[in-house]
């Protein structure tokens, strides 16, 4: 092709090209009309009845997704729209108990004067003014987990400055599907709270981060090494959940390891700072709720599939899921910190 012909074709190709660019610059946004169905807030229920502990039920309201982001408070409970005028009744077997509204700081909840036992079936009903339908849910307190400490040790590094704590323990499983949550903490003492027995660090200003380390496939999809500390607001709770999918009717060895130099100054008068291991058996509904809440919190990738939080509350959302708990205290002498 000679140069003259080329010069004639080039402007034509440029014209075609700019015609091709038009759509890329003219894509547009448009508000659409839609039928959302129900815009009224749902009643949100949260309760984790635990063996031998008083039962608490939290009630609040959801918000329609076009509402303003007024409740952007992370773990700050002050603006949670608690429901305080509900009538809540708990059935344990054939007996029932009415809830009493209590307040702990900003948190408000209904408490029942009953400590359920392992194997008890529980059913809760909440009548909320402004809602025609009762909010109901049921669960069962699962059997206690069987935990055996194999060994634990404090391992010094070559400089003696960054000791590491290593624990090995086993969970023995029944033949059916069982669900667990594991949490680990290092604290100076255990405090008995009103409703649930918690491992509670009253001395440290921050809690120790611990990692569960295992290469077993059962945990691979929870991302090995999940931080079980809850300081990061993006994580749900302080627990790692798992099922006995791969060790049904058997036992599984867990290895836990963490550095011991991460806790803050707590005073020289504290000589012992034990590690607390809590293993909880979860009802299926609580396990699913925990897992999906955790997965949704961690799902930040643009192209990730959306995560649906699995609830078991009829007439509302949330979870009413039983659990039973076993704790192990592992004494560890505390190295005095320098001021």
């Amino acid at each position, binding site marked *: 092709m000679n140069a003259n012909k080329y010069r004639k*074709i080039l402007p034509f190709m*440029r014209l*075609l090209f700019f015609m091709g660019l038009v759509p890329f610059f003219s894509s547009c946004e448009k508000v*659409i009309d839609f039928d959302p169905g129900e815009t009224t807030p749902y009643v*949100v229920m949260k309760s984790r009845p635990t063996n031998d502990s008083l039962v608490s039920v939290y009630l*609040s309201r959801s918000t329609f997704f076009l509402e303003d982001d007024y409740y952007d408070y992370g773990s700050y409970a002050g603006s949670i729209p608690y429901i305080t005028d509900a009538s809540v009744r708990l059935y344990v077997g054939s007996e029932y108990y009415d809830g009493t509204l209590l307040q702990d700081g900003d948190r408000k909840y209904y408490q029942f004067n009953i400590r359920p036992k392992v194997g008890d079936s529980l059913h809760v009903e909440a009548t909320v003014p402004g809602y025609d339908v009762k909010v109901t849910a049921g669960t069962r307190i699962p059997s206690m987990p069987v935990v055996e400490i194999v060994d634990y040790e404090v391992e010094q590094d070559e400089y003696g400055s960054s000791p590491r704590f290593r624990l090995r323990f086993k969970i023995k499983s029944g033949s059916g599907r069982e669900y667990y949550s594991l949490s680990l903490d290092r604290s100076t003492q255990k405090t008995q709270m009103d409703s649930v027995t918690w491992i509670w660090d009253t001395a440290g200003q921050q809690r120790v981060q611990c990692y569960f380390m295992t290469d077993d496939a059962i945990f691979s*999809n929870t991302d090995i090494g999940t931080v079980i500390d809850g300081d990061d607001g993006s994580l749900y709770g302080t627990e790692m959940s798992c099922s006995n999918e791969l060790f049904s009717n058997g036992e599984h060895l867990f290895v836990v390891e963490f550095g011991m130099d991460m806790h803050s100054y707590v005073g020289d008068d504290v000589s012992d700072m034990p590690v607390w291991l809590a293993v909880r058996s979860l009802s299926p509904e609580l396990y699913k709720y925990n897992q999906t809440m955790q997965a949704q919190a961690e*799902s930040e990738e643009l192209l990730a599939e959306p995560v649906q939080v*699995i609830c078991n509350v009829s007439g509302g959302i949330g979870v009413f899921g039983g659990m039973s708990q076993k704790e192990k205290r592992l004494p560890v002498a505390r190295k005095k910190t320098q001021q």
Partner: protein
Amino acid sequence: MQTMTHIRTHTIIFAVTMFLCSALMAQNYTISGTVRATSTGETLISATVYDMLSGKGALTNAQGRYSLTLPRGRVALRVSYVGYKTLYDTIELVANREMNVKLESSVQLQTVTIRADRVSSHRSSQMSAIDVPVDNIKSVPVLFGETDVLKALQLLPGVQSGTEGLSGIYVRGGGPDQNLFLLDGVPLYNVNHLGGFFSAFNADAIKNVTLYKGSFPARFGGRLSSVLDITTNDGNDKKIGGDISVGVVAAKVNLEGPLYKDKTTFNVSYRRTYFDLLMQPMIMAVGLAEDMGRTNMGYYFYDLNAKVTHRFSDRSRLIASWYSGDDKIYARVKYNDGYQSETVKLGYNWGNMVGSLRWNYELSPKLFMNITGAYTQYRNKVSVGYETDGKGSDFSDVEMSYNSGIRDITLKGDFDYQPGPDHTVKFGGAYVHHIFQPEVIGLKEESSDHEYDIDTAVGGSAIHAEEMSLYAEDDWSISEAFKVNVGVNVTGFAVQGSFYPSLQPRVSGRYMLNEDLSVKVGYSFMTQYMHQLSNSSISLPTDLWVPVTAKIEPMYAHQVAAGVFYNLMGLVDLSMELYGKNMENMLEYRDGASFMGSSTGWEEKVCMGDGWSYGMELLAQRSIGQVTGWVGYTLSRTMRRFDREGQKLNDGEPFPAKYDRRHDISVMVSYKPSKKFDASATWVFSSGNVGTLAMQRFVDPETGAQSSYIEHRNNFRMPAYHRLDVGVNFHKQKEHGVRTLSISVYNLYNRQNPFMVYRSSSHSYTLNGKHYNSALVQLSLFPIIPSLSYNYKF
């Protein structure tokens, strides 16, 4: 246990079929030969050779060969093909004879009206199959004026498009990975360019397109939902000719002709986009103005089809085919401060390569053989690099890459056997060696002191798998009114120490209620041994093709279909088909999973479940006359259920599939009043896609953790989609050929169709009298788009 039940049932069906087939031999003579176009010498596929006296007929196969066995005596042959003048001939059949036929194009005969005595779809025993003439594909007005096979197929009932502008197809509720794309009989894995905006098929290189949506003949297997069988042109055996096209986004050239007259022909097509070439000066200028350094970035794709056909004799041909197509996104920014230069490099590269060698040989007038050896490769690579180059000899070069791909080596044999006028038997087998390379991350580092030089790869090791298949089918005219196609496809897949066998019966039947009205039923069982993992609706280069493994089982589909077919006064084909399809072991990503940024392997990111789809398809099609086209309507429902322990989605409850659409309407009209002018228009309407939208947000009242509440997966349906496209072509005879100027307008009435929907706090909205400071907003991609293209055919 389920597999054993399948095998027992299918063995019985197979035995009965073979017994019935044995009753077919009779003393007759056979006419066989090839049907070609006079002007180009191209073989014509599915041309009809029909004896008007006995009422017996045959269709040409994929190589243009036919074989018709008839009783001794007078034969009045009628040979016809759409767009060609029908040929009549009377012969006295006293021995087997070879009879090659050449048909003249009706367009070249100066006739304005395209007429053909064609075998209407209502007479065929095959149902749920559509032959789409390439001329029709080329006349469909499309985005940027780029002719696209898959976008034309999206206009057919039962075939749905994905998101706006994308060329992926969803057939009868199946996923985009459940379509088998055969290019000259060899599978093609990635059929998309530019994330699916264009398909990999260059219409200039194509001779024939047939889509099977169900009732699959036994010769096809390996995918659940559809087979798209594309045959490319052999090449003109008379003279050198071709096409040159320049459009808005791409230029194409097609060249064909004889290498050795009447013996060897070639056909070469090449298409390339030129965004990158035209934008380069602008990008460099912006880069320098913004002090970004010397910038070189762009995107292009190309397709190259090449085919050489050598005819040893009328009975023997050797065909070598080649296809390669690549997409490439590249960016290279170079900074230089006078002492050291730094270069940042980014590259996305993906594409197919297919090579095949085929030998067609007529073993006898009744037995035809086709042996194929083929190599297929699909690969993609994403790479990021950083390079420094100081004065003197100091330099460092670091590159990270993400690779995946699949390679197949195939050997197969196909045989056509025409034992008598009432039977057309096809049988054959194939062996495929697959090499899957799902995810490999490469790291390469080189520096001037070579102290830390690395060249390593980590990730999934290659998975080797062997796939074997055997098939047999018989198209059997039991009586004048009753015709069946029965067959079986037996396959086995060996991978990672596991072996998955499958016996897949196929049967379809037609009963003529009168000359113009028939009813058909069909059943097919399909097995698929590979999956494509796609996160979003857009086909990305990072989509993985993965095989079944010891953990991941094959997909299965049972499909039944029934239909009524009516030919109205020889002018319009009307059909109504009902179908139901059940699919097992489909894969979906788990909630929260993504193909990016995870330390876990792909098997951990997916879960397995089932799906089903049912619906009704109506089609009215006119292929004769100045005005041709069709009107199609689909009413359908497609659901998924993932309820297996540890693999639940939507808490195990059924949910609508992503492309579940209740209504789909398509209208395509083409008007050809003269040789100088033709026009076409398409209008499509479909129910909106579904998606997942959290309508409520809540805070865990105990812990304060925030969350969105999704009632169920795919709970929100986007607004309906509709669009009108029009196009006109002006043809002018020039000294050495025909010039065509094409003008098309996409989305003529500028409908803003939804591409995606999201919550936006930049807008406000009033709902039921309540004002919100946020709104639900849709993003639309394509407004009205005029296009212009120029074509010269010589």
